[in-house]
């Protein structure tokens, strides 16, 4: 195992602090990124409330709800892995990370099924027999694809990061107890989860209030 402390830091506490601060700053940046999509959604929702309700009722609520449960569970397993890392329980770190990766993959699988279903039901902008004939409905579906797509890209990056960390902890390639790496990975994963918690009502519950 290599030394936990790296230049330019004189001590590990400062290095941990830097990694955590760096990731928080990055998360703020990510929020603005998704914020752009949320604002766009909000403005269009304001302009076309009934079209958004009608188009929102077309999304696959069961698959969306299952995925929400899966992702929330994965955040719990990730939190467990981070907690185990702080306590120094290597086996539990590995189990936590493996479960997180598994749940993340399941989410992607369900999402893939859902995308397939969407396409077969012509639920994409410009489809010949698009189900809702109202101005603004295609914009909703466009946003649905853009937002879930961008979220899926983030989740894929998270999956790769979890897999690499899993392998590196297993092989003792880095000092997972003293560096902030597990914590930082956890923060990123929770952000992906948090974004989904906002996307879920915006895309699936819209138009199903009655």
């Amino acid at each position, binding site marked *: 195992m290599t030394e936990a402390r790296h230049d330019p830091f004189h001590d590990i506490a400062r290095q941990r602090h830097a990694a955590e*601060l*760096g990731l928080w700053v*990055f998360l703020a940046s990510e929020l603005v*990124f998704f914020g*752009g999509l949320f604002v*766009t959604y909000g*403005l269009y929702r304001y302009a076309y409330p009934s*079209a958004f309700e009608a188009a929102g009722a077309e999304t696959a609520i069961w698959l969306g709800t299952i995925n929400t449960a899966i992702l929330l569970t994965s955040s719990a397993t990730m939190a467990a892995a981070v907690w185990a890392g702080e306590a120094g329980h290597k086996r539990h770190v590995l189990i936590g990370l493996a479960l997180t990766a598994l749940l993340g993959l399941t989410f992607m699988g369900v999402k893939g099924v859902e995308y397939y279903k969407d396409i077969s039901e012509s639920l994409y902008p410009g489809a010949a027999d698009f189900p809702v004939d109202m101005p603004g409905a295609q914009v909703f579906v*466009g946003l649905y694809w853009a937002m879930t797509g*961008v979220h899926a890209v983030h989740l894929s990056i998270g999956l790769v990061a979890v897999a690499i960390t899993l392998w590196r902890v297993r092989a003792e390639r880095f000092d997972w107890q003293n560096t902030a790496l597990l914590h930082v990975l956890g923060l990123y994963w929770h952000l992906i989860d948090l974004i989904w918690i906002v996307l879920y009502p915006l895309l699936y519950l819209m138009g199903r209030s009655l």
Partner: protein
Amino acid sequence: MTDIAALPEPHPATPRPTRSYLGAGSDLRSWLLTTDHKRIAILYALTLTLFFFIGGAAATLIRIELITPAGDLVSADSYNKLFTLHGVIMVWFFLVPAIPTTFGNFILPMAVGASDVAFPRLNLLSWYLTVAGGLLALVSLLVGGVDTGWTFYTPYSTLYSNSYVTLAAAGVFVAGFGTIATGVNMIVTVHVLRARGMRWMRLPLFVWSIYATSIIMVLATPALAVALLMIVVDRLFGLSLFDPDQGGDPIIFQHVFWFYSHPAVYIMILPGMGVVTEIITCFARRRVFGYEAMVFAILGIAIFSFFVWGHHMFVSGQSAWASLVFSILSFVVAVPSAIKVFNWSATLYGGHITFEASMLYALGFLGLFTLGGLTGLFLASIPIDVHVHDTYFVVAHFHYIMVGAMVTAFFGGLHFWWPKVTGRHYSEPWARLAAILMFVGFNFTFFPQFILGYLGMPRRYHSYPPEFQIWHVLSSAGAVILALAYLVPLVYLTLSLRYGRRAGDNPWHASGLEWATTSPPPRDNFVIPPTVDTDPYAYHAAHEEPSERDESGGDHQSSRKDEMP
């Protein structure tokens, strides 16, 4: 935030090797895989110089085309591609990264007393992202160009333009991640790696300005990324987010785009303000006037810059109430800028001023920034903006800020820190000549454009009515001087690398930690990690008048012996 200064420092006095950072190897590998912030700064500087001259070449063609009223040199279509190329390259591949990635990278860690930035490998990655983004943008231009203007306005950029918008947008998108990475690095470096005794209120204003810029980079750039992303997915997958046929609203794109692009103006100008503060204090031998006010002005600019974007949309169909509010806020953001101009002037007042080349640049900055800023107030006022919107008045205004102020500050910093970076002096007479040429050439080029715009000449046209010709000819003639002024430093700075006289550690007798180490600095910047016990700009005792520069020695001791009483 926990108090970092209180954390223990196990080996504060470990001596480090003194070999210069340039001595760590000269093969390509030692440069392309370096994690030394100083070498990365130089990689950036070389890359940005290349982009600057590519963007400049496009500007040259534009100015040649505009000498005659008829569109005779290039077709209207090529002209569109030329000004788009000029804008895209200059904004994203020169102006935005210019100072933070070069002087920010090279000087900031030294100025806070650190041995590197917080994340050295991320730093290198951000350079590769910038290069990758730049290459994508260049490829898009080589295979056929983009004709949307640097603003990528929808629905033109999504539905109608058949040029290489996707590729160019992807390039800017990728480079944007490089910008964010740099921002994260700088913020964390300032928070975590300050030397012992370097309290926040002892940070040089250059550091404060890069810090504030980094906040804007981190919080504004993702808005650009998402705006570009929406264009790209629209073009690739037909998501029609801005297609009016489907109920889409192109104005929403403008809102997201300007939410980034107005703060981006401050990404460009704030670092310049920081550089100029260092230069003015040094060559006036004066403590900066109103240090705290300067800090709060910098932070104020950074915060307010997020709430004025609507002033770009007074005639785009946004509501009159929104315009009213954005107009008022745009006036408000001018206040901290004005505070800074007054404080620079007050710093000069009673100083022992000498006119080295970098000081000439800094003084030029002061004049050009003031003119650019004041015309910005004209444009913030709705009745005037409605009249001169999308005319050369706007073009002249933002070139006064971006080229007049920002590029001048860049050259000022280049001359100020050149002896530190290379260990050599350049030819002072030539440098002064270039500084004066740049000031004259710049005004000659862009002042006529204020008049042109006021007379009604719209921007982005390659042919125009003959009555405007005289002003275009003046502007193009000035551009010749300006181009010359940019080329001259390329020659004498390059020559100085070989023939320049050795500069010594602190040739200007400047304060600031970066001058307390050797020139060029060692790999880890300081042989012994520094501690700080004075306020910045300690050019004279707090209640005394400045005195002439002590020419007796070039070492850092002389400049830091004056301490607070």
